[in-house]
């Protein structure tokens, strides 16, 4: 687990450049540490999270030029270690070009270090199992151990454990979102299963929250999964949302979508929006404060008769799969700060053409939800064709 088989494979790995770089055993490196030599571990964060030679300092190869001066002067003895050797060799050559003169590479790397019975230390913030589980994404310098810690500390609620909620919940659980909530009051039906991949045929009739919990816990037992088996309404929305930092809207009807939006604006929570119909999907992030909200985009739901009901419209199962995954992606970006969130932009997905299109959104200055001069009085329960067609017996969040 400690090494990435691809990382240490390099055509130069067997070369023996004409340099003064020496090769030393791990035991020798350990001895030299005690005499003041510096040991630099140039492996990726995900590998380092699994354990680093005691006394070593972590420094990514890309950061060597800029940061080696913090650890050693050119005249100081510097030792380099990686998983098995080649990356350390390349790092040593790089330092040689920077003027470092006393350079050595630990032969056999961390693997040999362990085989010689020398001690490795592990991050205090990660359990061994977590270090293994998240190693491949922690290897991304943009995420690293720090980003993983942010995910672990994050609290995200997904509204609906259905077509959108299934991929969103699966990927957020897999990514290590520490507290993952879901809100749904429905039971699993066979007609759900072409798209709601959290559930299974042998769970038909079970509450979706129970089925989803079983799947998610089996995937990642290290996170806190909270099931809210209820129908979201004005009377409970704030109590539920106040436990979370980010809300993912995977609901299937207009009244819930407007309620989610209004509560997010009121509580200052980002709303990661997704919606699908037939072969098309929409995704956006409505941020807390300042940005356009759902009502800026769609000020009211369609009236009865001007839009097909949700039941009759139908949907290709993979469409909510793609849109729900994009929602999970946006959550991970919001939590870790990676990249540019989908704020002020609406992404349209057309499955027929396999086309993604981005549209610019702007705030509606007279929005009855988020414009600064509007005063909140009470939640407005929107009604629509879809709401009517999927009243009480069905879930608010399919």
């Amino acid at each position, binding site marked *: 687990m400690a090494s990435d088989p691809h990382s240490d494979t390099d055509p130069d790995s067997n070369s023996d450049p004409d340099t003064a770089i020496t090769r030393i055993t791990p035991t020798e490196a350990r001895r030299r540490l005690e005499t003041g030599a510096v040991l630099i571990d140039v492996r990726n964060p995900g590998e380092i999270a699994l354990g680093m030679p005691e006394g070593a300092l972590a420094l990514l190869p890309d950061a060597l030029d800029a940061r080696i001066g913090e650890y050693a002067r050119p005249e100081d003895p510097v030792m380099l270690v990686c998983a098995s050797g080649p990356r350390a060799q390349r790092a040593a050559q790089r330092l040689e070009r920077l003027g470092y003169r006393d350079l050595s590479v630990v032969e056999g790397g961390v693997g040999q270090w362990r085989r010689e019975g020398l001690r490795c230390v592990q991050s205090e913030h990660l359990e061994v199992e977590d270090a293994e589980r998240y190693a491949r994404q922690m290897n991304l310098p943009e995420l690293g151990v720090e980003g993983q810690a942010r995910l672990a500390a994050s609290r995200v609620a997904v509204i609906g454990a259905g077509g959108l909620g299934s991929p969103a919940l699966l990927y957020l659980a897999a990514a290590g979102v520490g507290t993952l909530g879901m809100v749904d009051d429905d039971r699993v039906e066979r007609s759900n299963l072409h798209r709601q991949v959290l559930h299974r045929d042998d769970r038909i009739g079970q509450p979706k929250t129970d089925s989803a919990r079983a799947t998610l816990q089996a995937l990642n037992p290290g996170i806190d999964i909270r099931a809210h088996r209820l129908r979201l309404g004005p009377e409970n929305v704030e109590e539920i949302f106040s436990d979370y930092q980010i809300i993912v809207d995977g609901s299937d009807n207009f009244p819930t979508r407007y309620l989610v939006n209004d509560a997010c604006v009121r509580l200052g929570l980002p709303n990661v929006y997704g919606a699908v*119909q037939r072969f098309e999907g929409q995704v956006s992030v409505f941020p807390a404060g300042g940005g356009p909200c759902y009502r800026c*985009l769609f000020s009211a739901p369609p009236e009865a008769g001007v839009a097909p009901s949700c039941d009759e419209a139908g*949907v290709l199962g993979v469409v909510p799969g793609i849109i729900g995954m994009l929602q999970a992606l946006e959550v991970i970006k919001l939590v870790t700060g990676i990249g540019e969130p989908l704020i002020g932009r609406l992404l349209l997905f057309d499955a027929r053409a396999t086309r993604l299109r981005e549209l610019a959104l702007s705030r509606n200055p007279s929005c009855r939800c988020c414009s600064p001069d509007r005063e909140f009085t009470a939640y407005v329960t929107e009604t629509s064709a879809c709401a009517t067609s999927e009243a009480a017996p069905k879930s608010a969040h399919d």
Partner: protein
Amino acid sequence: MKSGNENDIPMINIELPDALRPMADGADRVAVEATTVAGALDELGRIHPQARVRILTRGGQIRPHVNLFVRERDIRSGDGLETRLEDGDSLLVVPSVAGG
């Protein structure tokens, strides 16, 4: 919509979402000649009246669950239905959908 000089009237495409295609004989786009968004929708109404009804109210206002984009911009943030069109433009119709 045609004037004395046909070359003065831009030819544009109205791009319809899945939900409106049944009202336009299944077409995903309808080519019309128009100088403004309002004119383009009038032309659409002449060819496919039911499609126009899904976009505009009886009073000719954009329905609140519909957004219209020209050159990837929401026309509400510009000149609304009076937004000028150029030859080759696309008028994209984006209604709200609720499915999850």
